[in-house]
């Protein structure tokens, strides 16, 4: 039957022409609807604090404790402000644990913390314990189970299952239409891989939603955005290397596994903290193994070839790095931990320098800056600057000759359109040729250019899907980042907030280097576009990072990586 269909199609290219003529209008509209539907809740959700306990002051005031980690101090920027001259600006940290127990940690305050009159450095709190901070006495009153249930009912729920279902339906329509556009080309030899590629994504996304419904999680915007970009990435593969659709599908599967695993690890803060050590060792190990056994492709020794598989372990190290960088508040308040992190970063950077991987080094550097800033504020500025300088120095010394070649053509690509500037001039020519609406899936020329489905994938996307879709793809990543920043205000633990912001920053930096490099605003560095670019390691990394974003989503019933507040007397799911 399939052969029969193709026989008809081959003689009737008019079907394809009509289809493409319609598709190039429909696709951006669908994308726009999807983007709006996904971004609106992410960017406008009401930031309702979760209340975990009350701090009772002697004057009978009750201060709500709204995070798992709360800085108590005189400063207005403290989470719990106790405006008393004897209280230090950041006096101590009140920390809640997964089991509902609380600890108080002195944050190098002048006057110290006393519990039941005894000066303590760190102390688990029992009910009725009297805490004295700078002479102000108070007691901590955790909310009861009943109150927790009431609060959970009062808090507005994250997006409904219905709207998540709607989003996924829209995405499925887009996937179907794209699939048909490729099949209409009548190339029988690629039909199976294309069907498998798009069909596989569709199955994966619906299975994930089904899983969410089972565990009473309703919010699917972040995932829909990721699946949308993954779909566009599959369209790039279908046009550039259709034979690799299956391989990419496996990568997506592994990515989802990484997403669920990292999410599970993050779900329990204590578990997450314990995993940090594992992550730290794994992160370095990935790089060391690459250094020893790695192969050099295109100037960077960042490939590990195992049988038919070629991996970029440095991609996985990104996830580990975020894990290591994220830290709970009580640890943040002591400087020693920051120095450990700096030392770890220097090790990572050293490995990357030896591997000649300029693009990845840059990503780690930006991630390092973000994490260091989030953790230290001003405290570590000096150390930060020194490390940054050292980092840049090593990069410059070690990687310069390799990087310089790219800098030579930067902003001069039109002077060497057939040699040094070939990839980027083709990219701009093809993006211009695509206009706002594109030439249609599979109808472009960019596929003949090296790395058209990875390093310069945005050009292929721009050419075949149009500039509007490309802009929307970029905005979708920006929306994820904006969501992380908004969520930070109602974050439970700094571990999650730092993790989410660092993950989002890595995604952003990758988009900056990939998209702006392709269009010659920046030098081309050969970095992948998250979810979009063909590449297994990159896909796994992107999904792994997405788990951190998901773990910071404290909206009610939103995230599988966040435990529910008790709601309506149900058993808590696990």
């Amino acid at each position, binding site marked *: 039957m399939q052969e029969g269909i193709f026989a008809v199609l081959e003689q009737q*290219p*008019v079907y394809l*022409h009509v289809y493409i003529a319609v598709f*190039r209008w429909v696709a951006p509209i669908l994308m726009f609807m999807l983007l709006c539907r996904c971004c609106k809740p992410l960017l406008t959700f009401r930031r309702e604090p979760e209340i975990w306990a009350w701090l009772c002051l002697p004057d009978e005031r009750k201060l709500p404790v709204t995070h798992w*980690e*709360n*800085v108590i101090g005189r400063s207005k*920027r*403290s*989470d719990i402000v106790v405006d008393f001259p004897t209280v230090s600006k950041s006096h101590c940290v009140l920390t809640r644990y997964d089991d509902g127990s609380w600890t108080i940690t002195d944050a190098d305050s002048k006057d110290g913390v006393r519990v039941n009159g005894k000066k303590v450095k760190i102390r688990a709190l029992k009910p009725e314990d009297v805490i004295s901070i700078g002479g102000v006495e108070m007691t901590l009153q955790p909310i009861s189970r009943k109150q927790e249930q009431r609060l959970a009912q009062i808090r507005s729920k994250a997006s409904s299952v219905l709207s998540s279902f709607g989003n996924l339906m829209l995405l499925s329509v887009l996937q179907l239409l794209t699939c048909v556009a490729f099949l209409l080309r009548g190339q029988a030899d690629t039909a199976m891989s294309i069907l498998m590629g798009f069909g596989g994504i569709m199955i994966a996304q619906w299975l994930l939603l089904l899983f969410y419904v089972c565990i009473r999680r309703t919010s699917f915007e972040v995932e829909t955005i990721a699946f949308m970009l993954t779909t566009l990435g599959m369209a790039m593969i279908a046009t550039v290397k259709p034979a690799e659709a299956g391989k990419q599908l496996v990568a997506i599967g592994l990515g989802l596994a990484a997403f669920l695993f990292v999410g599970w690890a993050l779900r329990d803060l204590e578990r997450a903290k314990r995993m940090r050590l594992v992550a730290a060792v794994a992160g370095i190990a990935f790089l060391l193994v690459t250094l020893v056994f790695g192969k050099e492709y295109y100037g960077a020794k960042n490939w590990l070839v195992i049988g038919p598989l070629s991996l970029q372990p440095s991609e996985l190290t990104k996830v580990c790095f975020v894990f290591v960088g994220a830290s709970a*508040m009580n640890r*943040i308040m002591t400087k020693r931990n920051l120095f450990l992190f700096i030392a770890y970063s220097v090790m990572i950077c050293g490995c990357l320098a030896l591997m000649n991987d300029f693009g990845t080094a840059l990503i780690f550097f*930006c991630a390092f*800056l*973000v994490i260091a*800033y*989030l953790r230290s*504020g001003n405290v570590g500025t000096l150390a930060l600057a020194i490390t940054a300088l050292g980092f840049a120095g090593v990069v410059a010394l070690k990687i310069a000759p390799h990087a310089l070649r790219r800098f030579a053509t930067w902003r001069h690509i*039109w002077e060497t*359109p*057939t040699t040094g500037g070939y990839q980027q*001039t*083709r990219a701009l*020519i*093809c*993006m*211009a*040729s*695509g*206009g*706002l*609406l*594109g*030439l*249609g899936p599979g109808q472009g*020329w960019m596929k003949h250019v090296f790395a058209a489905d990875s390093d310069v994938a945005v050009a292929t996307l721009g*050419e075949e899907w149009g*500039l509007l879709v490309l*802009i929307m793809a*970029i905005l979708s*990543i*920006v929306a994820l*980042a*904006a969501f*992380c*920043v908004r969520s*930070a*205000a109602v*974050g439970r633990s*700094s571990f999650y*907030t*730092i993790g989410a*912001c660092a993950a989002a*920053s890595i995604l*952003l930096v990758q988009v*900056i280097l990939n*998209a*702006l490099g392709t*269009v010659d*605003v920046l030098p081309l560095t050969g970095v992948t576009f998250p979810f979009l670019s063909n590449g297994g390691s990159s896909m796994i990394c992107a999904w792994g990072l997405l788990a951190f974003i998901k773990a910071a989503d404290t909206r009610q019933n939103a995230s599988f990586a966040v435990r529910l507040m008790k709601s309506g007397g149900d058993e808590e799911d696990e």
Partner: protein
Amino acid sequence: MNRIAGRAGITMLIAVVLLIGFAFFLGEYFMQADEWAVFPGSPHVYNGSNIGCGVTTDRDGVLLLDLSGDRTYSADALLRKATVHWVGDRRGSVSAPALSHYAAEFAGYNVLSGLYSYGGTGGTAKLTLSAKVQAAAQEAMKKYRGTVAVYNYKTGELLCAVTTPNYDPDNPPQIDESNPGEYEGLYVNRFTQSLYIPGSIFKIVTLAAALEKLPDAEQMSFRCEGSYTIGGDAITCESVHGKQSLKEAFCNSCNCAFAQLVEMLGKENLQRYVEQFGVIEQVRFDGITTAAGKFEGGTASNYHAAWSGIGQYTDQINPCGFLRFVGAVAAGGKGVDPYLVDSITVDGIKTYDAKTVKGDRILSESTAQILGSYMRNNVQTKYGDKNFPGLHVCAKTGTGEVGGGKKPNAMLAGFVEDEQYPYAFVVAVEDGGYGAKVCIPIISRVLAACKESV
């Protein structure tokens, strides 16, 4: 946590860097995308060095060349030969400057759709050429090397322009020692790029100058003894023409009479008029620039100046440049530039629509009228109206002596005096022999085809 939440803004800072960077790119995009899309080597527009998209048809929609994919030419071998110098060949030996010039219009770039066109075929260019006339001209010229061209002197449309030798791009010839000369200048578009010694067709120019400059020129009479001596050197005629009026001298193409005319006119004046008439000027249309002619009579000795007024000495004309001059005479002293590409349409939207480019007045209306009547007289009394059934043709033949033991160039220039068929024409045949004998049958066939095709 409040502090961390505040510091989370750093992630937004990175997002802003991305947005600013991409906005910068969008700025560049909207300023330059039209240039990027048709940048030389753009795979959507070019195929190698040749333009690689779009369809080219003749004025009636007859397919000449489909550029998309593997270049599909007309199914008619005769037509393929006749138009190869306009649409180019596969190897890039013959380029198609007029088509490349409109690469952007062919590709039909616009901000919304980029280079998208339904089915990816690109635009359709309608040339002013008529396939029928081209084919007729090809038949008429097949034995010769040279060019024949016809254009509408009111609008500028080039109805026909064939240059020979040419070849079938679908069946390119083997050029080797066995056929020397047969393919001499094969890749040259003679109409726009060749220069010819004009011979007596240049007498139209000299006559025009005399009519402009000498008020009693029409009343003058000339005596031809077969030769006329200037500064000890003789200007010769092939026969003794005796006493003749100016009109008769023009009709007889009497060298002695025209030598006297140049003397009366003054060589500097003649030089000035040649330049004013634009006879040796380059013509520019559709991205094509023709070869510049040459006239040095103004600074030559009187003897040489006289020969220059007869279309010998160092005179060189380009067929297209001369055609425009004859067209201006036909149009009453104020001509139009020729053009080849009539319009380009992409998905029903015209991306290019030719406009007639009017030239300046180069000679007075009365001079043009007298010139026309003299040229008409040539046909009536010498070349024979029977060669042009139903057409009022005005013309002048020429025989350009090239020296070196070669046969002279046979030349012809003229126009049809008819509201319905406002055509000017030029014929040049290398090694052709006598202008009248060779060129009249050629233009007779071509004009008949023109008449038929309209």
